[in-house]
């Protein structure tokens, strides 16, 4: 018996979410490959430089917003159903959020791809940050709004299951797989308020022409109210995997239940009031609020370092169970031949590197050296592009068999895949970071200029371009391997009652040692709201007190 046989209805929903996620991953990844060759001037024959920005928008929206959201929905359906031991409460409701989210995605995707049709009036080359006054087709914004609303419904679905479960289990602790999902969704509710107000309150009326002018700073600030918390919305499900599943894959069990819960509580509190750290270079926001955002950002180092400790301790415990000895020699006893383990472990290593460049980004005045340079994509290809994406891919090797009742095929290819991703990303990301230090901008089709040359501190521009192009190519090969292994296993894997070992052992230090207050969802949610009000109420008031759409700028076609 595996998940498919125990919870066939939930398995179907999770599978539907994963299918959409993987299609988005395939298309978004292909766009990334074309960009890597175009930017570096290795090959510019696919599209012209104006169309580059359409591809870039597709890359960002499909990977950062669509792949992640659908994958997370599938993962949480699996985790909540399994840990509460209940199918979703009402399948009509569950399928309605899935289809609403899919309709939203299709609307948005069509407007973006319209930019590749010559003379099309349906365009949305506004990148995934969609800053006005650059204006996309209204369906772009409406589609995004539908995706967000549907994700709220998905969260409500899990809270619904939890409340029903609670009635039958009044004294039990929230199961850890449900706890992490619900806290992630609470954080998501707090942060998506900003983007929902932006899109529904400002951008949709403006794109439909009901108002002609827009104040650019206000939507930009609302976007970043959401825009950094969203990275924790991607990251926490990766933590979900590292805390709940990775210890088991290493041959052991989770080190501490309490640590896990504390980390998720801190993320709920601190994920949102950090948004100004994307706006250090903006006029119109005072230094004091930027400083507050920097302090909260730096405090987030704490839960990340706690995660490092807990996850490594869990892995070490696993390795010792497998006969590992010594201070560091145990590392060799980890299952380096298991694709799911290898992917998660390499993703964790890359995340540590991404954390270091993140501290530079967070440091207000040092940030100005690299703000909007290619250093920044270098950073987030380590975090979301590897820590999150590689973890999601790796855990698919363990989850998809449970959802399809079929064993994994092509295990050797599956094992090569995460190593290839690691290699490709090492090449690409180090070059992006170094190019950023020289001032090479991000988000540009042709980062070479007629009037001056960049002066790299380490290496040469040509060498960096080649590392980005070769790294991007290796990443694409890795992505093709992943899609091939998953598709082949899904369609033709050997049927089995127990295609993987899906038993998850209890933590070493279990929930009975965890302070009860950590499960008090209302308390933590209220505190999170207060911290957000402290950060945002005054600056937002300053921006809207002279009129919501004032000082107004006219829309420009994208």
């Amino acid at each position: 018996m595996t998940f498919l046989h125990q919870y066939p209805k939930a398995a179907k929903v999770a599978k539907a979410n994963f299918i959409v996620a993987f299609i988005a991953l395939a298309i978004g990844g292909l766009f990334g490959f074309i960009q890597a060759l175009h930017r570096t001037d290795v090959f510019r024959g696919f599209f012209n430089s104006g169309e580059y920005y359409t591809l870039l928008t597709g890359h960002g929206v499909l990977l950062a917003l669509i792949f992640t959201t659908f994958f997370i929905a599938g993962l949480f359906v699996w985790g909540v159903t399994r840990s509460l031991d209940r199918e979703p409460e009402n399948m009509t409701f569950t399928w309605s959020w899935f289809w609403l989210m899919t309709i939203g995605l299709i609307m948005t995707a069509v407007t973006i791809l319209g930019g590749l049709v010559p003379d099309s009036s349906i365009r949305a080359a506004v990148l995934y940050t969609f800053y006005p006054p650059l204006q996309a087709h209204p369906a772009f914004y409406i589609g995004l709004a539908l995706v967000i609303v549907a994700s709220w419904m998905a969260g409500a679905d899990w809270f619904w299951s939890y409340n029903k479960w609670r009635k039958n289990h009044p004294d039990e602790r929230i199961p850890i797989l449900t706890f992490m999902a619900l806290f992630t969704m609470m954080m998501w509710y707090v942060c998506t308020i900003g983007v929902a107000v932006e899109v529904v309150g400002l951008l949709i009326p403006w794109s439909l022409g009901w108002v002609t002018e827009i104040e650019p700073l206000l939507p930009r600030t609302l976007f970043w109210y959401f825009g950094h918390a969203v990275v924790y919305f991607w990251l926490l499900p990766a933590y979900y995997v590292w805390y709940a599943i990775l210890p088991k894959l290493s041959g052991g069990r989770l080190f501490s239940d309490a640590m896990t819960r504390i980390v998720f509580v801190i993320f709920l509190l601190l994920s949102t009031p950090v948004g100004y750290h994307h706006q250090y270079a903006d006029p119109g926001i005072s230094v004091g609020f930027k400083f507050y955002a920097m302090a909260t950002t730096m405090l987030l180092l704490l839960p990340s370092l706690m995660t490092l400790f807990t996850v490594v301790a869990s892995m070490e415990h696993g390795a010792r169970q497998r006969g590992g000895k010594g201070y560091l020699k145990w590392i060799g006893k980890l299952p380096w031949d298991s694709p799911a383990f290898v992917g998660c472990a390499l993703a964790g290593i890359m995340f540590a590197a991404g954390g270091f460049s993140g501290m530079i980004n967070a440091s207000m005045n040092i940030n100005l050296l690299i703000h909007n340079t290619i250093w920044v994509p270098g950073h987030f290809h380590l975090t979301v592009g590897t820590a999150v994406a590689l973890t999601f891919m790796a855990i698919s090797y363990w989850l998809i068999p449970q959802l399809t009742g079929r064993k994994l095929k092509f295990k050797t290819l599956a094992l090569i895949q995460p190593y290839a991703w690691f290699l490709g990303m090492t090449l690409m990301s180090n070059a992006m970071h170094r190019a950023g230090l020289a001032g090479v901008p991000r988000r540009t089709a042709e980062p070479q200029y007629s009037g001056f040359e960049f002066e790299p501190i380490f290496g040469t521009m040509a060498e960096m371009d080649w590392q980005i192009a070769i790294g991007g190519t290796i990443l694409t090969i890795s992505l093709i391997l992943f899609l091939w292994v998953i598709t082949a296993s899904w369609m033709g894997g050997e049927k089995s009652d127990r295609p993987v070992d899906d038993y998850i052992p209890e933590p070493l230090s279990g929930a009975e040692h965890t302070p009860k207050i950590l499960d008090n969802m209302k308390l933590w949610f209220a505190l999170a709201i207060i911290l957000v009000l402290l950060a945002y109420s005054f600056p937002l008031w300053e921006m809207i007190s002279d009129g919501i759409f004032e000082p107004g700028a006219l829309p420009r076609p994208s």
Partner: protein
Amino acid sequence: MIVFFIATVVYGFVAMDLKVIGNYETIDPQNLSDTPFGTPGVKEVTKNGATEYEVYVQTLQFAFLPGTSSPITVPADTRITFYITSPDVLHGFDVAGTNLNTMAIPGQISKFTTIFPEAREYGIVCNEYCGPAHHIMEGKIEVVPKSEFDKSNLVE
């Protein structure tokens, strides 16, 4: 460790004068002609008895005004205050390889002060996506020795 990181930033702020911008001053982006941005360029001012310069720059799709068709020429070793705004969409104003890096947002004025220590040329890059020809948007700053600074190109 967290305290150390924050302290590093504060030290940079206070001791090394590494500030970030944070002024709140709005302007009507559709009506820049009645403001100092209507005659963009380098202006001479006297502050605390010393001669300083102010540079008013408009960033627009897809040029810096001034900066693109003619370089922004300023003297070395002198306080220069930049005022930057945009009449159309978001742009970036990044002096490549330095920490002079700010957003240009319609409706807002970015202001920062710097001293260029020596005579040399710098490239200016627009580092915020601003439309289909974003990648051609570049400019130049020409820092000349104080003694060779030609005041005939100043604007009033």
